[in-house]
């Protein structure tokens, strides 16, 4: 199919699905709405695969030059608003290695989630609305990754936020879901404020929003700021750090991560799609998209590295103490995304040909697959035992064999055991970090060890430990076929994805590059992972009191980690005690008395004036003519007096 047509359809099909299901869904049966949404997504998936395959494999001179360098290509780019010659807002479809890869990731996971939800959401009130929102999300996410300019990206960025808000609050009768959706929206909006300011600063100096212009001549971007500085840092650094702030919000980097664990109030497939595989990596994608510009500012890259490394460690520690299985996965997601961020931060082109960039994108890809698998598996388990807490689980391997095996594959992948996909991508990232500075390498190896530990803790507590007594009354059952097929598919992908020669396709300068394992790093990380898994096995395979004794021994640490190091309390303190009481109350007073008072005054003046002059409109045509004549003579007189 024609590339232009299929790329239009990739965006328009999900949008059309959203409109159809949103406007007429209530008149459809659940089954029809679900099947329609899934079919629409299926077609989008095929189109996206076709576009990505055309981009990577066709060898057309639009996409790859004679030297094998992959090119950036705008399939279409419509001018939407043209204010001045330089202030132009365009909407387009941008193809380059990372957007083609993201097309594949988004449509694959989205399709799997559509399919899975047919079983998982069966019989829920608002089933059609759910599918409409899923389509809206997919549309926005696709629009985000193919954006030709930073403003288009911002528009879709916000749309993604809205659809995430709608889906987290899907069970809107549940107060916790409502407050979680609000929290997610407000925190990410707050971060987006930084993003917007960053965009404005950057475009103020460069006079363009266009990614092509920005990334192809980063030196010109640097030069355009003319060496301007603000508070000791160059304005370029400020702009980039502020833009990164938007990414921190969406990708749940510390300290803006607080919304993601709560977002687990949404339906589990939504968590798999939005809060594990696609939306939360938007921040990583944003940095990757602007990477050549980021290279101009080593301070901005340093910020990214430090934020990433701190978040990765923090989230991994917290994940070790959570009881809710979705929250464990949520913190694990935060930690893994932070891994990708750190890998981008250390990806200097001088070090190992900037392989951190490639590794980060590689991990984004594999993580999307295995984390979606883990979330969907968790959904199947929650579906079976009707609880989120692993204390209500244990010994499930006999009852749910398919879920068990696929979940185990997911755990092995994330723990970095060869030959599963996570091993390869994580190994590349660790190599890149090790080459930048051994400190980052060892630090992140430690985080990888923690990852293996908490994932296997989770695995054993769900599937081994000891059988829950409730099973006698309520026997857990394996999930229906619509749910197991996505699990099996994603498990297969998680097994083989590591063997994709990723460096052939995605690198920072788009030149193909051959991946080779660095055995010293690989062995270290494998040994770390195996040791961590062994400890987890010793602790949690069979029921014993070792974990409890350890918990009691380090009570303060465990409590602190379990309460997520009091970040929520800190936010509560800042918002309630400082912002609300010290800042908002005076402003509210000012608003109520001064602003509203002024407005009321305007209103009453307007009203009085209006009734005062109503006599002018007498209804008698003679008086009209008199006013006409006197009015014009008065104007003439005034002008004469003033000018002559």
């Amino acid at each position, binding site marked *: 199919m024609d590339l232009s047509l299929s790329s239009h359809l990739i965006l328009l099909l999900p949008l059309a699905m959203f409109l159809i299901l949103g406007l007429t869904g209530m008149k459809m049966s659940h089954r029809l709405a679900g099947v329609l949404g899934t079919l629409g997504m299926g077609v989008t998936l095929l189109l996206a695969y076709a576009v990505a395959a055309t981009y990577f494999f066709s060898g057309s001179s639009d996409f790859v030059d004679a030297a094998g360098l992959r090119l950036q290509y705008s399939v279409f780019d419509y001018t939407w608003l043209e204010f001045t010659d330089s202030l132009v807002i365009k909407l387009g479809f941008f193809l380059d290695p990372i957007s083609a890869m993201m097309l594949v990731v988004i449509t694959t996971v989205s399709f799997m989630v559509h399919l899975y939800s047919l079983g998982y959401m069966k019989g829920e009130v608002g089933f059609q609305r759910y599918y409409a929102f899923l389509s809206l999300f997919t549309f926005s996410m696709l629009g985000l990754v193919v954006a030709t300019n930073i403003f288009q990206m911002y528009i879709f960025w916000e749309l993604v936020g809205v659809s995430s808000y709608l889906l987290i609050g899907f069970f809107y009768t549940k107060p916790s879901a409502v407050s979680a959706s609000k929290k997610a929206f407000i925190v990410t909006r707050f971060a987006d404020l930084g993003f917007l300011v960053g965009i404005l600063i950057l475009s103020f100096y460069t006079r363009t929003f266009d990614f092509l212009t920005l990334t192809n001549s980063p030196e010109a971007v640097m030069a355009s700021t003319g060496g301007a500085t603000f508070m000791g840092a160059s304005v370029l650094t400020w702009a980039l750090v502020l833009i990164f702030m938007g990414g921190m919000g969406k990708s749940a980097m510390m300290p803006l991560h607080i919304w993601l664990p709560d977002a687990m109030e949404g339906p589990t497939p939504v968590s798999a799609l939005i809060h594990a595989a696609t939306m939360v990596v938007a921040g990583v994608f944003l940095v990757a998209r602007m990477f050549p510009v980021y290279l101009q500012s080593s301070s901005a890259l340093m910020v990214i590295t430090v934020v990433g490394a701190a978040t990765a460690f923090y989230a991994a520690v917290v994940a070790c103490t959570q009881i809710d299985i979705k929250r464990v996965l949520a913190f694990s997601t935060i930690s893994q995304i932070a891994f990708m961020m750190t890998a981008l931060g250390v990806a200097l082109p001088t070090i190992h040909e900037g392989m951190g960039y490639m590794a980060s994108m590689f991990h984004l890809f594999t993580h999307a697959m295995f984390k979606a698998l883990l979330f969907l598996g968790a959904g199947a388990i929650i579906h079976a035992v009707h609880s989120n807490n692993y204390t209500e689980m244990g010994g499930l391997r006999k009852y749910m064999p398919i879920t068990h095996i696929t979940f185990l594959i997911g755990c092995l992948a994330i723990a970095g055991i060869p030959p599963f996909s996570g091993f390869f991508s994580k190994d590349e990232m660790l190599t890149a970090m090790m080459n930048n500075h051994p400190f980052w390498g060892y630090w992140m190896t430690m985080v990888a060890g923690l990852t293996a530990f908490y994932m296997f803790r989770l695995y054993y507590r769900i599937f081994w430990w000891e059988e829950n007594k409730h099973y006698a009354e309520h026997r857990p059952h394996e999930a229906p076929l619509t749910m197991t097929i996505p699990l099996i598919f994603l498990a297969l992908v998680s097994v083989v994805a590591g063997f994709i020669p990723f460096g052939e396709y995605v690198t920072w300068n788009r030149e193909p590059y051959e991946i080779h394992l660095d055995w010293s790093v690989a062995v270290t990380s494998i040994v770390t992972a195996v040791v961590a898994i062994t400890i987890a096995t010793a602790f949690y395979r069979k029921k014993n009191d070792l974990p409890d004794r350890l918990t009691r021994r380090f009570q303060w640490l465990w409590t602190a980690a379990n309460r997520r190091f009091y970040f929520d309390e800190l936010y509560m303190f800042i918002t309630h005690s400082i912002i609300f009481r010290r800042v908002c109350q005076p402003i509210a007073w000012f608003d109520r008395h001064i602003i509203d008072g002024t407005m009321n005054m305007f209103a009453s003046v307007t009203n009085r004036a*209006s009734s005062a*002059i*109503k006599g002018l409109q007498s209804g008698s*045509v003679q008086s009209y003519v008199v006013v006409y004549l006197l009015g014009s003579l008065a104007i003439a007189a005034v002008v004469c007096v003033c000018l002559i």
Partner: protein
Amino acid sequence: MDYSQFLVMSQELGLIAVFLLVFLFDTFAPRKALSATAPVVCVLFALFTVVNLLLPCCCCGSCTVEPQSAFGGMYVTNQALFTIKNILNVGVLVVLIQSIKWVNGPDQIMRRGEFYELLLVTLFGMYLMMSSRHFLTFIIGLESASLPLAAMVAFEKKKYESHEAAIKYLLTALFSSAILLMGVSFVYALSGSLYFADIAASSLETCPLLVVALVFVLAGVGFKLSLVPFHLWTADVYQGAPTSVTSYLSVISKGATAIAAFIIFALAFGEFYSEVWHWMLYAIIILTITIGNLFAIRQKNMKRFLAFSSISQAGYIMLGLIACSPAGLTAMMYYILVYIFSNLAAFGVIQAIENNTGKLSMDDYNGLYKTNPMLSVTMMLAMFSLAGIPPFAGFFSKFFIFRAAVEPGTTALYVLVLIALINTIVSLYYYLLVVKAMFIKPDEPVIARFRSALSERIGMWICVAGIVILGLASCFYSDIAAAVESGFNSLL
């Protein structure tokens, strides 16, 4: 005389052809076929509109109309004029479609041909007003755009208000014509010519006679635009006239006169006298917007309400003239285009309700959403667009006209735009009153559910599409800007 120069007036000739066809049809068609008069006129006019839109592209190869003049420079045409005439054509087409049901009503049925003939003649007059470069042709255009309108206002034979409105309109129109002629004769006395270009070139001293002349010319066009203090006829006439005529008066007549005013003041009085009329216009704009708003707040009759709203809208349109630049003309044309759709959507709803239930008061609209949701949503969109709420078209038209007005960068202009902005907030209040009535107010004796006629629905759909599409697509504005850019030099 070289008769081939008539060909320059291709648009006017086309319009006359439509007029003659309607006239012949009305006179010679068999009695039975007469019931098709209204659709025939609509189809003919739609054809005329489409041909005009496509003509430059098909005939000349390039999509722009070459600037040309005829009759010793009394008449000119160029891309900008061509575009504004096309914009007005679209508006007239909507008015024609919306009027079908009313025209086929029992009181009008014997005279429906006349209605269309009168309307087409006034449109011809407006064309001439905009294309003339000589005060004589301008006044001929103005009169032929004015006098038949009095007959149209009086069209509802059996209604007392219709007659009253027509008499008021006629008297005020005659008075203002006299004033305008007096102003023009003063100009002639001072400069010795009626050509705009000669007047501009004669660089006169600022003397009281010149000031009076400029005020009188401004008063003459201000009457048609219903600028304060020349506006007092507006509310009575809008209320008394048949709704189709009111909508025609409020958008088409106003739009054409605004452009004509721009041309006169930019061309004839542009370079040397602008400081004189600049301040007059400044004061008049403030008065117009403010007083229009203040009166609109208290209106209960929908047509009277829209009359005052259209007064304040005329004030906004005049902001384009005070800028007196290509950007000002572009913004003005765009404003007129958006205003056509927004106002005609509102009038479409009013007309549908009037035709079906005879109700015209705002209180009758209470609870309309429950029984007629589509009409309510259309009205809401129209009100949002008139008030200038994004993302609807009205927001962008206000944005562009404000931007054009502050472009020269003087403090006085910033103050003017600030006053206009405050007035938009006031206008928001009364536009939202209508929305509140339809959506929020409890319904006592609510208007029963009814299905509007096909023609009414088509008219409203066109307007809604216009409001939404113009809000989302920017290409129209840049097209108009390009047209003005290519035509402005020959204009000035």
